């Protein structure tokens, strides 16, 4: 047996900060992975196919409430979706910002993802999130890209789930 003579630890306050920062960074990555899983599995093929004409465009989603240096995910639109990047986009087609409190991000994501992509479903999200400023997108003229992205996230009425 080797006797334990541990190397000195960094001080406790730093460790607390380090843990909090790493947990937040991982939380952001986790959101990215979960969204990718849900899109890959449950978004209907016809919606993904429609992304073909927007292939390569980047949509940046910001989570300022996480309060970390890099607080955004960059999705590259494609009919074969892959993991988002955890970095700002060099040339975002659309920037979507979640202005919700940190502890409300998960609930907001759940609410949005489980919404139905129907006229009333989109109107509900518009009133609940976009008109109240909880979620903003810019530039405003790129509503088409925003809707195309949103369409892939909303799996509430996905036929794959019902099957």
């Amino acid at each position: 047996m080797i006797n334990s003579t541990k190397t000195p630890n960094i001080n406790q306050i730093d460790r607390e900060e380090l843990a909090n920062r790493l947990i937040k960074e991982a939380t952001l990555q986790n959101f990215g992975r979960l969204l990718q899983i849900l899109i890959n599995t449950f978004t209907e093929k016809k919606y993904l196919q429609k992304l073909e004409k927007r292939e390569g465009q980047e949509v940046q989603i910001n989570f300022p409430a996480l309060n970390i240096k890099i607080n955004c995910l960059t999705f590259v639109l494609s009919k074969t979706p892959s993991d988002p990047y955890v970095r700002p986009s060099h040339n975002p087609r659309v920037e979507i910002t979640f202005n919700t409190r940190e502890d409300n991000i998960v609930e907001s994501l759940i609410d949005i993802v489980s919404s139905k992509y129907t006229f009333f479903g989109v109107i509900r999200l518009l009133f609940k999130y976009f008109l109240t400023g909880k979620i903003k997108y810019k530039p405003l003229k790129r509503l088409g890209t925003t809707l195309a992205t949103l369409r892939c996230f909303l799996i509430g009425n996905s036929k794959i789930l019902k099957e």
Partner: protein
Amino acid sequence: MNEHKIIPYEILYEAVKNSEKIICSTIPGDNMAILKSFIKVMRLTMEKNIKKAEEGLPIIGHHFSFPFELFFGTYEITGVCVEVISYLLAALLTLGSEPYYDIADNYGHPYHTCTSQKGVIGMTLDNLFEFDAIITPTAPCDNTIASYPFFPYYNNTPLIIGDMPIYHDQRSINYFAREMESMVIELGKIIDQEPDYEKLRRTLEYHNKALEYQAEINELKKAIPCPFESVLCPALARSVPILHGDMIELFLKEVLEIGKKRYRSGKRPYGEEKIRCVWPYMSVLFDIVLCEWMDRELGMSVLFDMFSNSFFDPIDLSGDLEGIYKGLAKQALNYPMTRQSQGMADKMIEDSVFLCKEYQADCAIFTSHIGCKQSVSLIQILREALREEVGIPMLSIDLDVGDKRFMSAQTIRKEIANFVKTLNLDR
């Protein structure tokens, strides 16, 4: 006060907690039922472990291919499975454990060693773990034997090693039982605790119950269509080493219930079963939805991988302690991967042929993991054995099961999809 001795474990807990919330709230009904159960039990286990760490209980890192119930049951400790941390992070985060693989590589740890240990090596180099001791057998591979001594070398963490014999006969069981006993005593001295063998017996009662459920699950897999999602295989790979006592019992009980319900209705979770497949080696552990894709898009049921290949005898708890040690030693020698990779290659071939025959597989897929050099020489022999004895083809894919940079999830899907096109499926 939380001293944050296991920061990656805390990160993982947050990721598991958020994954549970998002997946369980957005995916209704029977969809992803096994994944939902797995995440729930994982969260419960991690909650308990983090609480134990906050209370100041010793942090014990351990190898995955080993019945950790022995230590978990005998002492009051916080168990952290080295390999599961790396690979569960790989599944739940976009970057996975990749930054930590790179830290280990830059430190000088060979790039071609197994990522399962390299992740935690990188995390330790980054000062994120403070283990009080680490436990490992000298199995199942060279990576284990070469990577675990990093911990005492780097920061003098006590390393307790159980010498596992190459042969797996009765003499070896007796020998390894003695090894296990000495490991228990050594750990007790390091953490300054007395062994509580009554607690061990209680833990092993759950363990035995879990084995009963496992046996029933294995039987149910013979049904056509298979009532379980393919994700059960990678879920078992991560759950068996990390869930102990009542938690593993709870998980397997829920899985069995899901399977029974579907079996009675005669329905497969996702549409028609077109292909039954055995993965003689590991599942892809960085891509949690690969299994969903195989289930839904290809109609392929993955019946077994190496880690779900567990057919253990329960441990006799009516006898003395020596009998318990021998029972655990027998299990340890037959643990997934230790059984197939540590000794002679015949076990691996026999097991694969048995599983493919018994469970009526149409094909096999072998993941040639970069870390597992010991398995690469086996691929052609195994392919020939499966063709001659079962009459099925085997695809081999070169990849790293925990690092998507080696071969991406999309390329793996393409390879599998192309392979499936070549199958003759006149069942």
